[in-house]
């Protein structure tokens, strides 16, 4: 008698299927490479190579580097020009106030780039003095004498900075954008006020009687009077203000006030620069997304703005670090600095973690048309002047 095959019990089959599924799932979880330590597994043809986008035609450089001013900060983040072309740099829970560059500094083509901390006319912050000031428990260790470095201590990390110009209601007043609020200081460094909390503040600019604060969280530009009283918003559709909504994917949402009375606002997700009147109406917009030099590339650029005395706009980009100059109407004019003249690390595409993220360069322009580029990796201010035509 032939032996009959024993039928597979349904329960055994189900248990087997479940166990196999659990095993496969466990292996799949085990193989997940969250940190990319095993690489992508793709061939070189899939390599994400930005090298060719970093090359800039030398003929497009309209500026050249003339000097470098070392900044004794671990994490410098913002730069601004004060009254009389004082240079203010914010970072490391402090603001360093530097004397103006000598009138001749950087105005001639004969001045060549120098090693850090050397050369006439560039007054570097004394490391010991600055370091002591930052660590000092005293709120305002000021002043230390005319022409020398001043330090304003802050309670937390600053992210943006502006100074009221001569036409401002309070010339020389310092407005510091912290993470979520604004602090104001008198020209002598004494603390004036702490404004109410907002969202994520990325940039501050001031006109005659208005202070603008860019909020990357609310995606609007707030308008305040110099005492911190809210006056309105730009970027939120309401009533007669049919302004565009800003696309702000990352905490880089710069603004700058121009001599023509228009507020320039970067719309970084749209790769545009937009100009608004003081009452919030859009006047003009320019800029397009492109890897080409005249456009803005990456997820969100430009990351910083400055305005030259003649009304031209200086833009600074992150990702592929580029500083460029456009006319007030947005016509591309030339390049100030590219990856070659900035820290090579700034061009690194490997930003794996927030605490290792490199902040992009910050820009400012003084009354002589010199462009000051804060290089956060090299921890210095690079001074560029326009080529003589």
């Amino acid at each position, binding site marked *: 008698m032939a032996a009959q095959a024993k039928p597979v019990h349904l329960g055994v089959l189900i248990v087997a299927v479940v166990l196999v599924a659990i095993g496969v799932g466990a292996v799949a979880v085990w193989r997940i490479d969250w940190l*990319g330590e095993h690489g992508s597994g793709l061939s070189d043809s899939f390599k994400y190579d930005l090298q060719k986008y970093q090359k800039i035609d030398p003929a497009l450089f309209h500026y050249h580097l003339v000097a470098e001013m070392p900044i004794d900060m671990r994490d410098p983040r913002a730069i601004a020009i004060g009254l009389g072309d004082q240079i203010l740099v914010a970072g490391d829970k402090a603001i360093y106030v530097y004397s103006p560059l000598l009138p001749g500094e950087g105005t001639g083509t004969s001045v060549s780039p120098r090693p850090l901390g050397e050369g006439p006319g560039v007054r570097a912050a004394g490391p010991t003095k600055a370091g002591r000031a930052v660590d000092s428990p005293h709120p305002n260790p000021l002043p230390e004498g005319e022409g020398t470095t001043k330090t304003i201590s802050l309670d937390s990390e600053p992210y943006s900075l502006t100074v009221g110009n001569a036409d401002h209601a309070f010339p020389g007043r310092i407005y510091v954008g912290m993470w979520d609020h604004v602090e104001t200081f008198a020209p002598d460094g004494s603390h004036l006020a702490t404004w109410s909390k907002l969202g994520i503040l990325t940039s501050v600019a001031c006109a005659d009687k208005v202070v603008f604060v860019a909020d990357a969280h609310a995606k609007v530009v707030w308008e305040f009077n110099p005492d911190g009283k809210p006056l309105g918003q730009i970027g939120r559709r309401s009533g007669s203000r049919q302004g565009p909504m800003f696309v702000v994917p990352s905490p880089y949402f710069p603004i700058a006030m121009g001599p023509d009375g228009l507020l320039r606002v970067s719309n970084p997700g749209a790769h545009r620069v937009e100009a608004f009147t003081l009452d919030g109406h859009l006047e003009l917009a320019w800029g397009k997304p492109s890897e080409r030099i005249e456009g803005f*590339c*990456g997820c969100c650029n430009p990351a910083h703005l400055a305005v030259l005395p003649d009304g031209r706009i200086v833009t600074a980009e992150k990702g592929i670090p580029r500083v460029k100059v456009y006319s007030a109407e947005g016509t591309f004019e030339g390049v100030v600095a590219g990856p070659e003249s900035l820290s090579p690390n700034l061009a690194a595409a490997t930003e794996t973690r927030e605490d290792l993220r490199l902040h992009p360069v910050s820009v400012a322009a003084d009354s002589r048309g010199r462009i000051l580029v804060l290089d956060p990796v090299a921890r210095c201010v690079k001074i560029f002047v326009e080529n003589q035509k």
Partner: protein
Amino acid sequence: MSRPCPLSGHRPKVGREKARVRVCRGGPRRRSGTPCLTSAAPSVHNRVRHGVLDLRIAIALLALWTLLSLPALAVERFPPPDFSNHQLPVTTVPPPQFAANPYVDVALLALALALASYLAIRRRSRRGLFLLTIASLVWFGFIRHGCICPVGSIQNVTLAIFDRAYAVPWAVAAFFALPILFTLFFGRTFCASVCPLGAVQELVALWPVKVPAWVDHSLGLLSYVYLGLGVLFSATGTAFLICRYDPFVGFFRLAASANMLIFGACFLVVGAFIGRPYCRYLCPYGALLRLVSRFSKWHVKIPPDECIRCRLCEDVCPYGAIREPTVATAVTERRRGRRRLAVLIGLAPLWIALGFWLGTRLEVPLSELHPTIRLADRIRQEQTGRVQGTIDASDAFRNTGRAPADLYRQALALSAMFRTAGGWFGAWVGLVVAAKLIHLSIRRQRNDYQPDRSGCVSCGRCFWYCPVEQAKQGWIQEVPGTGPLFGENSLPAEQAAGRKMDLSP
């Protein structure tokens, strides 16, 4: 041997037949020994019809889901890689995010919770709950991409507690609090048909089998352990572990690594046989709701009136959440139980202390997940030549210009923090184990089949199968001469619990 239905010829399953036999034969006023299958025939039709409907909808959704998931392997880059024949697409500017999204999400969540509670408690509508399940899956899952969700919000709330610099968005806080609030009043109606993770598992639970009680209780502890890990890693700023290993969010977003998609698919395969495996054995938010649901003011009831102890609910519940009536025990047994309970309560502090001690031993494996400690270890290995080459993280670190010594100091400080955090995690696990043992040792008095308040997800499957419910809805009628179907318990509690009934016709 089951008898075919005289109306349709359908021969019900033996298990169901057993249940019906008990309904009629076990009653105290039984007048006939004939099983009243005739009276149950319409409900069999209902069940078959609804079962087929369920199956069709589930298969259709599964097919649609699979098709939609195919593009998930694509990777978006900008600027795009330079392929030889690749035409660069025109760059589009993303539209701004709809500013009212958080308000809409919270309003819809509150509405869905209210509707689920109404359907489960008041209307007792399995069909309504099922439709709401699909709607929630579509909106909270595929349209809102599984984010924001209450499951992950545990981590946001934890991080906000431990990190003063982190502000939890109000909508996330609302997503965390609203389901807990509703559970406090109505039981786990969030799990019933609002949670997209539960919804997808509800749809694939096609051939559920009973999980042995000891396995169910043991695996159920995992969700509390996972909750502890999720809190630990979010409190230390290590990672949002719960979101990272969410098995279904990759399907919702149509984007995930192949391994995560395989992981999710495996859960669905398991879910076809074991009802809601993620909800029951892993979901940390489910663990919270289980605790809260024990104290809920109202909870779904299986029969709308008096239970007739037919055991159908116990048979059909795919989640093993029906508790049978208890039987009277002898005085000596009760005394022994009290002694056991006292010992377990006395041992609880020891469990917690042991857990704390063991948790501190977990300092190294736990801290290895922290990105700073991983990075410090990697830099050390690269410096000492133990590994060749660099990785993105080590490149990024060197780009910052920081000294490795700074990183090592930071890693050591974090490691010490993990020793303490691991201790608290171990204490939590010890507390969970002790509480489970105590919970199992507490004797409860139940006269009817009742849903386990903590385990029941209020899915309403048992409504359809309850003869009392069917009679109330007019789906079945009493057969004259078989005695009342309900009004009095038809099966003695001892027999129902002990399952010693004579099943022969």
